[in-house]
Every structure is written in structure tokens, then in C-alpha cells.
């Protein structure tokens, strides 16, 4: 229950965002049920918005999957950090814990782990329960809140301008992700390269632009050394 309590501020804070994503699912050209299902299939606001935006623009399955993979690569790093603390847990528990891993769940678990002294001091079993309480609460409420947003879609559309919703949400996510100088340069490169990349067929432009942006900044950093 300590984990659930720790997740409550995030649950409340994410409510308008979840409602907006649910409303976005209702405004797409494909099935609203498919849009909402991304909440439990993909489970990650950024990847969900990008996937819906790309599908709406007619992108192919491969492009949507590739974009989602690039966006979710950071989950590999979170999982790598948490895995040593999950050693000894049952396979089924680990599978469920992995499935509900998302940014705030990692932040909550990592903060508490650090506060309790970290490796060698913190009680691993207690922290496993703490993590699953927090991550489980986040998952259940996210799926429910986006579901409510999808159901209320037409009513929310009256207050949420549909055509502005996707770019606004992507901009907010960008603001949260671009925390330091390097990531702001990568963001700027992605924005600049994203425009000409629109000419690439099959909706593959964003994926190509993203890879090119990271490669360009890597090259600049290497040359600068």
C-alpha cells in the first residue's frame, strides 16, 4: 500500500493528460477502441500519441512499430537498473512487474530505493512489493482514465481543440524529455530534420529524421572533441 500511496500524486497529475489521450483516440480515423487499447498494449503516453498520430497519417505497420521501439528504448535502461533488485523473484512476478514499467514507476521506485540506502541496505523484498504497488496503481488508473477520455471524446472535443491536441501533447513531452543541453540539441535537430523528412513515403519520415538527428548530434560531439 505504501507504493500505491506514493503513486497517488502522479495518478492525479496525469488525469487531464490521460483524458486528452483518450479524446485523441476518439478523434482518429481508425477505431476508437483500437486507439484506447494502446493504453494497455503499448502503455506509454509518448509512444501512444506518436503511434496514433502516425496511423492517422497513413503510416505502415513497420513504421509505427519502429517509432514505438525508438521511443521506448529508454525502458530498456530503466529495466536494466531495476533488474538486479528483482533477482530471486518468481518469473511470473517479474513478467508482470516488467509489463507495468513506465517512467513515473521507475522514478518512484528509484527515489525510495535511494532514500532507503540503496544496494546492501534497502530491503529488496519490501521494495519489490513497493514497486509493484506503485506501478500497478499507475497502470490500472491510466487504462481507466484514458478509457473515460475515449468515452467522453465528443464532449471533451468541445473544450479540447482536436487539431491542436496531438502537436500540443508532443510538445509537452518534448519539454519534459529535453532536460539538458545535449537533448535540447537533439530535439532541435529532430524538429529541423522532421520537416523535409515528411517527403519520405510510407510515413517513415519521423523514424528516419529521429535516427538522423541523433547521428548528427553524435557526429558534432565527436568532431568537437
Amino acid at each position, binding site marked *: 500500500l505504501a507504493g500505491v500511496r506514493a503513486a497517488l500524486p502522479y495518478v492525479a497529475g496525469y488525469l487531464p493528460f490521460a483524458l486528452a489521450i483518450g479524446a485523441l483516440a476518439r478523434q482518429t480515423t481508425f477505431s476508437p477502441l483500437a486507439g484506447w487499447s494502446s493504453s494497455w*498494449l503499448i502503455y506509454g503516453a509518448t509512444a501512444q500519441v506518436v503511434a496514433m498520430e502516425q496511423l492517422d497519417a497513413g503510416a505502415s*505497420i513497420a513504421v509505427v512499430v519502429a517509432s514505438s521501439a525508438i521511443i521506448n528504448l529508454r525502458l530498456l535502461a530503466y529495466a536494466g537498473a531495476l533488474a538486479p533488485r528483482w533477482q530471486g523473484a518468481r518469473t511470473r512476478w517479474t513478467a508482470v512487474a516488467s509489463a507495468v514499467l513506465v517512467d513515473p514507476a521507475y522514478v518512484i521506485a528509484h527515489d525510495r530505493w535511494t532514500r532507503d540506502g540503496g544496494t546492501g541496505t534497502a530491503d529488496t523484498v519490501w521494495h519489490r512489493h513497493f514497486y509493484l504497488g506503485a506501478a500497478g496503481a499507475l497502470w490500472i488508473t491510466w487504462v481507466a482514465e484514458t478509457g473515460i477520455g475515449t468515452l467522453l471524446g465528443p464532449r471533451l472535443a468541445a473544450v479540447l481543440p482536436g487539431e491542436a491536441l496531438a502537436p500540443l501533447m508532443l510538445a509537452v513531452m518534448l519539454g519534459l524529455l529535453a532536460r539538458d543541453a545535449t537533448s535540447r540539441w537533439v530535439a532541435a535537430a529532430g524538429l529541423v530534420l522532421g520537416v523535409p523528412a515528411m517527403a519520405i513515403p510510407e510515413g517513415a519520415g519521423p523514424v528516419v529524421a529521429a535516427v538522423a538527428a541523433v547521428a548528427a548530434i553524435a557526429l558534432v560531439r565527436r568532431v568537437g572533441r
Partner: protein
Amino acid sequence: MTAWLALAGAGVVAFALRAAIPLGHARWRIPDTVAEWCRLGAVAAVAAPLAGSLVESPGEITAATLAAPAVAAVTAGVTRSLPIALGAGLLLHIAAGVLP
């Protein structure tokens, strides 16, 4: 059907990324450099479609089209809050539509 398949495929990949290390090789540690490039990749993967959605209809670009996302991004960076940033962007967009 395409949407379902794409979302299911993206879901399988997302689960694989979440579970590969804990389920497969719990002793693996991700090098900091790799984690850093993963993080930067996520930033670029959000920036590129944002640029695309902003210039989708060049004839219809207004000041609000560009200003509202910019304000939302800066607000998110400063406040670290999703709802506040989204609210600020929406307010500006609505205000720009109402004002002459």
C-alpha cells in the same frame, strides 16, 4: 485492422524492451553510454513527428499553431508538470482562436 496490428506489434516490442533484461539476463547492466543514447533517441523520436504535425497544412499555419506548442514545451521544461504545460498550451491556443 492495420491499426490493431500496428498497435499490437508496438505493444509486443514495448514489452520485449521492458522484460528482456529482468526475465532473460538479470545480471546484465546497461552501460551508461548506451542508456544515454537510448534517452536521446526518445527525444528525437518525439521531435520529428511534432515538426511534421506543425507543418502538415502549410496554408493553415497561424501564430497559434507554432506559439501554443512552443509555450507548452517551455512550460513543461520549467514546471516539470504535464497538466500545467498542457493547460498553458491549450489556453494559448483557445485564446488565439477567440482573439481577433
